């Protein structure tokens, strides 16, 4: 049995079979045992029924992406499982556990040449009606991963204790039966024994991390309209904002939520809303108002498959164009993108800081993969970025809210401040805020809004830069983890590859990007869009090496480390 750097497990079943719960419980158990992990789910659009899969990867080190193949697949049943053929990639080494009464084993399992073992989970629950098949699956998986029995016992007691001893005993019994059923089986790979770290680890989703990061950055007001896959950000903020003196209100639609946060921020409270593509489309006019009236706001877009309603439950990176270019008129604003679950915290915090410092809308482009993935990570380091708005308390008469000069960030009077009364306006305005249609004043204010963003020092956080090779990977957002993993595999092959992953997408950083690309002879651009939006964006703003290739593909199928590694091998051969 080989020592593996990570092990990947998938649970499959029809909706309501409880496989998502099983995935969560196994991650929790693995975390208590000291491993790191990443858990994602793939579900159909139905709330109940349909198909569901929990995909879990465990390792002795933090993980930011899934592996190329699964080592273990447990199917509680095979109903609609064929739909996962591409998402759950199997190989000849994969151990598949199937219920003989769970329906026909789908073609993709046989095609992979995987080893299929039957465990009669349904039969067992018939014999002992208080058992659940998903708990049998949990016990089997824990045993195959080499988890101590005590870990599972503690977990089940902790999670089900509130429901009484009978429930705890039933679930323990089911898990033990599952473990017993696989007692004679072994996975071809095994994880190294986990090491408990000196610091407390966290189990958190990207959406929760966005919420916490925003609060750390100073957000105290949120307006919410529900949308998949962003609602969890708002649902985390709803009970937690009041704990720090803030508040969340539910809006009647996204037109309202964006304007509510503009009103709240105008009133002095750093403000945020979160949405996904269709909601972002509705908010765009409001974001332009915030740009023109210079009101700081944070808008999180958890991207899903588009256009239109698209695939609400699955990931894509195709909102890049609308986020960067979607506003009418010339409306400079910030666009940032987190690169991992852990980085969701930092990036949301930084976005809040930038919005407040620059009195500008800041868009955070997360995606369904990051947002709904649950990761066991090291506690993210504290960052010093807390929103500090330049406010005015003493005024010349009349007060010039949009005064030119200096950094072009002009002091903002907060309602209630005597002598600072002004009217914020989406109309082109003078320095005082009075509407005007004069060419000179229009240009002066456009320059002001442009300059304040261009002249700001964004520091090293604008991008993640790693390695020094003549071959470079240029990617963004949630693909950064897969790129890093591919690069480390390539390094083991003797190919040194540089990583450039901009966290700041707008405004562009031409000088910094030129420095990052210095000496790069061959460039591989990687992105999850159908139309290569990121590549076109890069071409518009940066000088790329003449030898540049693009690996791009629409969601929801993620680009895996192996896909990138194959492209890198081609670069090596070239």
């Amino acid at each position, binding site marked *: 049995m080989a020592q593996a750097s990570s092990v990947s497990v998938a649970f499959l079943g029809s909706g309501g079979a409880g496989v998502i719960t099983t995935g969560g419980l196994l991650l*929790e158990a693995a975390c208590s045992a000291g491993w790191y992990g990443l858990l994602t789910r793939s579900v159909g659009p139905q709330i109940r029924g349909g198909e569901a899969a929990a995909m879990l990867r465990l390792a002795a080190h933090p993980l930011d992406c899934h592996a190329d193949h699964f080592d273990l697949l447990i199917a509680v049943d095979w109903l609609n499982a064929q739909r996962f053929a591409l998402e759950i990639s199997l190989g000849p080494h994969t151990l598949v556990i199937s219920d003989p009464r769970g329906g026909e084993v789908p073609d993709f399992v046989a095609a992979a040449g995987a080893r299929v073992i039957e465990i009669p989970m349904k039969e067992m629950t018939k014999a002992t009606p208080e058992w659940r098949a998903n708990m049998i699956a949990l016990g089997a998986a824990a045993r195959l991963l080499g988890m101590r029995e005590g870990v599972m016992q503690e977990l089940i007691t902790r999670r089900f204790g509130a429901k009484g001893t009978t429930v705890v005993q039933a679930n323990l019994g089911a898990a033990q039966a599952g473990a017993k059923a696989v007692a004679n089986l072994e996975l071809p790979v095994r994880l190294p024994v986990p090491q408990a770290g000196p610091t*407390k*680890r*966290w*189990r*958190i989703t990207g959406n*929760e991390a966005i919420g*916490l990061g925003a*609060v*750390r950055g100073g957000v*105290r*007001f949120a307006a919410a309209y529900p949308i998949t896959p962003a609602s969890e950000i708002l649902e985390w903020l709803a009970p*937690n*904002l*009041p*704990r*720090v*003196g*803030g*508040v*969340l*209100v539910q*809006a*009647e639609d996204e*037109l*309202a939520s964006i*304007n*509510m*946060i*503009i*009103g*709240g921020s*105008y*009133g*002095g*409270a750093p*403000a945020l809303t979160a949405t996904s593509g269709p909601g972002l489309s509705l908010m765009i*006019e*409001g974001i*332009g*108002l915030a740009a023109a*009236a210079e009101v700081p706001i944070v808008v999180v877009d958890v991207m899903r498959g588009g256009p239109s309603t698209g695939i609400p439950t699955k990931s894509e990176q195709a909102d890049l164009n609308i986020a960067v270019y979607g506003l009418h008129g010339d409306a400079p604003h910030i666009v940032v993108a987190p690169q991992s679950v852990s980085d969701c915290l930092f990036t949301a915090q930084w976005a809040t800081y930038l919005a407040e410092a620059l009195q500008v809308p800041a868009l955070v482009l997360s995606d369904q993969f990051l947002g709904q993935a649950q990761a*066991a990570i090291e*506690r993210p380091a504290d960052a010093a970025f807390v929103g500090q708005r330049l406010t005015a308390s003493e005024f010349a008469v*009349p007060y010039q809210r949009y005064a030119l000069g200096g950094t072009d960030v002009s002091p903002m009077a907060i*309602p*209630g*401040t*005597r*002598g*600072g*009364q*002004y*009217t*914020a*306006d*989406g109309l082109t305005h003078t320095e005082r*805020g*009075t*509407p005007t249609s004069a060419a000179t004043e229009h240009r002066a204010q456009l320059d002001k809004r442009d300059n304040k963003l261009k002249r700001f020092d964004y520091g090293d956080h604008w991008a993640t830069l790693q390695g020094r090779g003549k071959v470079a990977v240029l990617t963004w957002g949630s693909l950064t983890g897969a790129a890093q993993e591919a690069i480390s595999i390539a390094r083991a092959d003797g190919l040194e590859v540089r990583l450039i992953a901009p966290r700041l997408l707008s405004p562009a950083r031409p000088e910094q990007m030129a420095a990052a690309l210095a000496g790069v002879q061959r460039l591989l651009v990687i992105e999850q869009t159908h139309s290569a939006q990121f590549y076109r964006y890069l071409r518009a703003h940066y000088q790329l090496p003449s030898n540049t290739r693009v690996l791009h593909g629409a969601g929801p199928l993620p680009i895996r480390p192996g896909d990138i590694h194959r492209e890198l091998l081609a670069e090596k051969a070239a």
Partner: protein
Amino acid sequence: MNAELKVAHKASDYKSDIAPIWCPGCGDYHVLLSLTRALAELGLPPEQIAVISGIGCSSRIPAYTNCYGFHGVHGRALPLATGLKVVRPDQTVIVTSGDGDGYSIGGNHFLHACRRNLDLTLIVMDNHIYGMTKGQPSPTTEPDFDTALTPGGSGLRPFNPLVIALASGANFVARAFSGNVSETASIIVDAIRHPGFSFVEVLSPCVTFRPDQKAWKNQVHPAPVAATDDPARAARHLMSDDGFNVGVLYRGDRQPYRPSFGGTTCDLAELEKEFEI
């Protein structure tokens, strides 16, 4: 009695030095005057007041006052005001809108602002027409009113905003006529003082695209019944009146919406405990 306070506030204290650019004879001049008179009577410091608007002739008012103001995008004044009032309950927040801005493009926000019942005052200057875009029919335009966009009329029945406000939960409903400045000012004072969401519809003639509305000054009359606290009764009167009854029509006693900010402020480190393994 404090005589000093009484003389301290004049309508002009609440006016900015920016000259309005409405058409001569527009009803909105009188609404501005009524609003500033009302603010003077309330005696609030101008920096404690915010006047919020969307787009349209009526929405120009914020910049003509000496208060804090926000001239936002078309139809979204109520959400702007909602965000401001939620985070700044200490501010007196007034929304100025028109029949296109408030009832058509902003119609959904109108329903939900009534329902939410924050302590806001909405003043809609209703002239049954889109003035700023030069004369298209609004939700309160008569079906046979001929316009370039709807030759021969829209054929659509106008709706009754006051009844909609009642059905949606507004806590104070009144109709005023811009030409009656003192009366309108006094209704606005009442509306601002009344807790919760107050809605004042002001019939404000558009002399350019609706010269027929010059006759309104002869058509308006005091509502024949006193204000009620029964929304069903108020709605029945409104459904059957001629549309020219002016005065306070409904005063409710619903508790205003006050979202909870929580009692105490905990350390940020407390928030992360739930994530610790």
